[in-house]
């Protein structure tokens, strides 16, 4: 079943006298329970695409259908109500929270605003969410700024799943984490998808990460999708210049060490 379909989406930004096509006619679809990886170098338009789909920026042209609705036609209270269905986790683990927030208050807000749980039931629901992402119920009382990077990203994921969304947009969600923490977060995301059938739009510049979690892959370059298909097929034989560059940029473990210098 198609959950999200995007047709010919466009967005320009003007900077000084330059006119930049950040997203230049992008189309794709995403099924329920599926992960679509969006790969591309910095400036390829990945984050702008995420913002358009999340309705954090408005496109100039194109259509978005989400859960059978004309997503771009939703406004005001109707849009706010439906935002519970589409959540987000971003790269910036420091900027994603109010600086004085506690873990509990971060999770209480969406449960209250989207009327997921009554006031009486919210502490129990917060404890359940924390447990689900590998944190302790007692962490609800801790200020977010005391947490490590990996713990913060777990809170961001708990917040994202709190409204029981069908889609989570992950924009470089593991890029700021070191390898061990990153792997645990990726495992958590895959488990959540298996349990709850959530779809992910997973944006990253790191093909090794996308290969681990994405069923299908789109490669973006200067605002366009230049390749689109099954992840393993595309990584095994990239067709575009951007695809080649991304594949060859993945660091490989060189067990024998680097080749000796000839200089």
């Amino acid at each position: 079943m198609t959950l999200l379909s995007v047709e010919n989406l466009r967005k320009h930004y003007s900077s000084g006298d330059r006119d930049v096509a950040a997203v230049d006619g992008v189309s794709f679809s995403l099924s329920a329970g599926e992960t679509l990886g969006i790969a591309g170098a910095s400036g390829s338009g990945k984050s702008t695409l995420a913002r358009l789909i999340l309705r954090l920026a408005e496109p100039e042209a194109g259509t978005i259908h989400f859960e059978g609705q004309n997503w771009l036609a939703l406004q005001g209270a109707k849009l706010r109500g439906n935002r519970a269905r589409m959540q987000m986790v971003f790269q910036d683990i420091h900027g994603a929270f109010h600086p004085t927030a506690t873990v509990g208050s971060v999770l209480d807000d969406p449960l209250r605003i989207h009327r997921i749980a009554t006031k009486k039931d919210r502490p129990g629901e917060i404890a359940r969410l924390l447990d689900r992402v590998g944190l302790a119920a007692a962490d609800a009382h801790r200020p977010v700024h005391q947490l490590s990077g990996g713990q913060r990203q777990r809170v961001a994921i708990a917040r994202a799943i709190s409204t029981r969304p069908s889609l989570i947009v992950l924009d470089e969600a593991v890029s700021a984490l070191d390898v061990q923490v990153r792997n645990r977060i990726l495992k958590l995301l895959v488990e959540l998808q298996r349990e709850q059938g959530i779809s992910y739009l997973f944006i990253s510049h790191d093909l090794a990460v996308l290969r681990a979690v994405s069923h299908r892959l789109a490669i973006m370059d200067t605002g366009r999708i230049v390749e689109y298909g099954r992840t393993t097929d595309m990584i095994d034989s990239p067709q575009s210049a951007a695809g080649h560059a991304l594949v060859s940029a993945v660091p490989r473990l060189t067990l024998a060490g680097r080749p000796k210098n000839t200089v």
Partner: protein
Amino acid sequence: MTAALCNLSNMTVRYGGRTALSDVSLNLMAGERLAIVGESGSGKSTFVRALAGLLPRGAICDGQVHWASDQAPRLGRDIGFVFQDASASLNPLLRIGEQVAEGAKRHLGLTWQAAYDHAQALLEQVRIANAPAVMRAYPHQLSGGQRQRVAIAAAIASRPSILIADEATSALDTVVQADIVKLLDELVSKNAMTLLFVTHDIALASNLADRIAVFKHGHLVEIGPVADVLSKPRSSDTQDLIAGHFDLTSPPLIAEVATS
């Protein structure tokens, strides 16, 4: 045969009551490329900052550092340092030309004109396209990758013999990262510098370094040539880092699904 450039013994660094680096001893060899690998909080940045004399005020540093040369290398003159965040390491109010030229003027005793010429040559060396225009630009006008190239040019402006890159590519996308790693590789070879390369990515370390030092919880848990450390890791922490690495040959976390 390479000689020891520096012997470090029992180096310990404390911030307030917290021990960030614990009893680290190693020899740094002249002209080698040493990768410092570990997770966040393993002490790898503290180690290179202690070596470069860049610890914040209030940090307590014990242990001996013995340099083979008569005079300890001076930061900025003999040691170039490249940080993770290039936008924070460049002065937002100074033009690129002035920032790169400053080190050359100060440490090489050049006139401003000669220092500017040197700076432009350096920008070309770090493969900044249209160097004359970039000389007049401000940092905010450049991309993240260009800013890091400029930071590298500034770090090598005084022709240091030691270059320290502290997670210099971690904030960059993989394509730009690969370019910067290649650039560091060329610069270090061409100028015969000793390189200390701090990274959490053991694969990146294996591509660039001669030796790898693995840090965990402030301790040096293993050090040796890349091939030895990777193929016969002695420490379980090194084994964890190797096991945690995945690339384009690792099994995906998801099962293949039939796409409708």
